């Protein structure tokens, strides 16, 4: 349903287009109530022994009452499996954020060039450590993190070598050798 008859918001008079879907008119789903055990010998919820089992968990197989049955994209999960799955990124539906280590590494590599180049040996070394540490971290969904990290590793090695050579030139370079020979 489209409210094409509403060219302007009546309150702020801004041109507005509202597209409504059938769910807009659906009533709120009633809260699920777990049923109490009536007969002895009935299967009970693993987490609530006084409640009747409604469905087994699709991950661990424990019996769950209607209250503990968590619907995740059609699968029935218990709270513990849901929490474990979310923590270990086994349930992509629940994943809300990933750290972009490639961006962190790029900052470590390129920010000191502008801000504080004397720190280059240290920052490039830290960048190399981060690349090694986070190589197997969950990659980005929209850009190729592994390729970026590979390129940054090469840049970090060059930067580390170059900056160490620069420090050697400054403190113990050819002028020092000349002085020693004299």
């Amino acid at each position, binding site marked *: 349903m489209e409210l094409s008859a509403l060219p302007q*918001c009546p309150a702020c008079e*801004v*041109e*507005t*287009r*509202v*597209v*409504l*879907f*059938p*769910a*807009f008119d*659906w009533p*709120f789903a009633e809260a699920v109530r777990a049923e109490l055990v009536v007969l002895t010998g009935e299967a009970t919820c693993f987490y609530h022994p006084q409640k009747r089992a409604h469905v087994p968990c699709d991950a661990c197989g424990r019996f769950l009452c209607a209250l503990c049955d968590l619907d995740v*994209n059609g699968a029935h999960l218990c709270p513990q499996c849901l929490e474990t799955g979310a923590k270990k990124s086994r349930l992509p*539906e629940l*994943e*809300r*954020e*990933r*750290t*972009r280590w490639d*961006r*962190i590494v790029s*900052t470590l590599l390129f920010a000191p060039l502008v801000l504080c180049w004397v720190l280059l040996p240290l920052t490039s070394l830290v960048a190399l450590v981060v690349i090694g540490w986070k190589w197997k971290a969950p*990659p*980005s*969904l*929209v*850009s*190729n993190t592994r390729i970026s990290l590979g390129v940054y590793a090469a840049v970090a090695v060059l930067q580390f070598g170059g900056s160490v050579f620069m420090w050697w030139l400054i403190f113990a370079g050819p002028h020092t050798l000349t002085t020693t020979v004299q």
Partner: protein
Amino acid sequence: MMLKKDANFRRLKVGGLGPLGSASYWLAKDHLLVVEVISYSERYRRFYFRDLQAVIVQQTGARKGWNIGFGVALLIALVIALVLLPGALRGGFPSGGDDYGVIGIWSAIFLVLGLPLLVNTLRGPTCTVHLRTAVQTQKLRNLTRWRKAELLVTELGPLVQSAQAASAAASVASSDPADAATAAPPG
């Protein structure tokens, strides 16, 4: 696995770069995935078709504001150019190598001010887009042009309608088997 290599996802030609990061929009079989890259993290928002209640597109005055800003700057630059280049009014240049440099600088200034004005005008009116579900109304990032918003609505609308029709049918079937039996097609 990257989304562009995943056959279950199709990228919508909306979103892009913004002042605080980028956002891309991906259609899966049962949801819209919004990927926002902000500083050092990548955030995912999933809007399931069965949950979407409305798309709200509201025009904003950002295009007008930018156009006024660039237009005024362009006008000021034009006035200054006409004042500082009296030779141009008299039709006396280019008379030497220096004049070409001056013309180059002023051309660059006009280009820097005129090009964004032109692009901003051609991209159409600006807007904000909100998706409403039963529990939240979420503003979509970097979706600021009316034309792109209409593209989103065109792509999203039929998918949401069909998902919700299927969901409604399933709910009728589960609540009243007799109704479902009469509603079911013969055979």
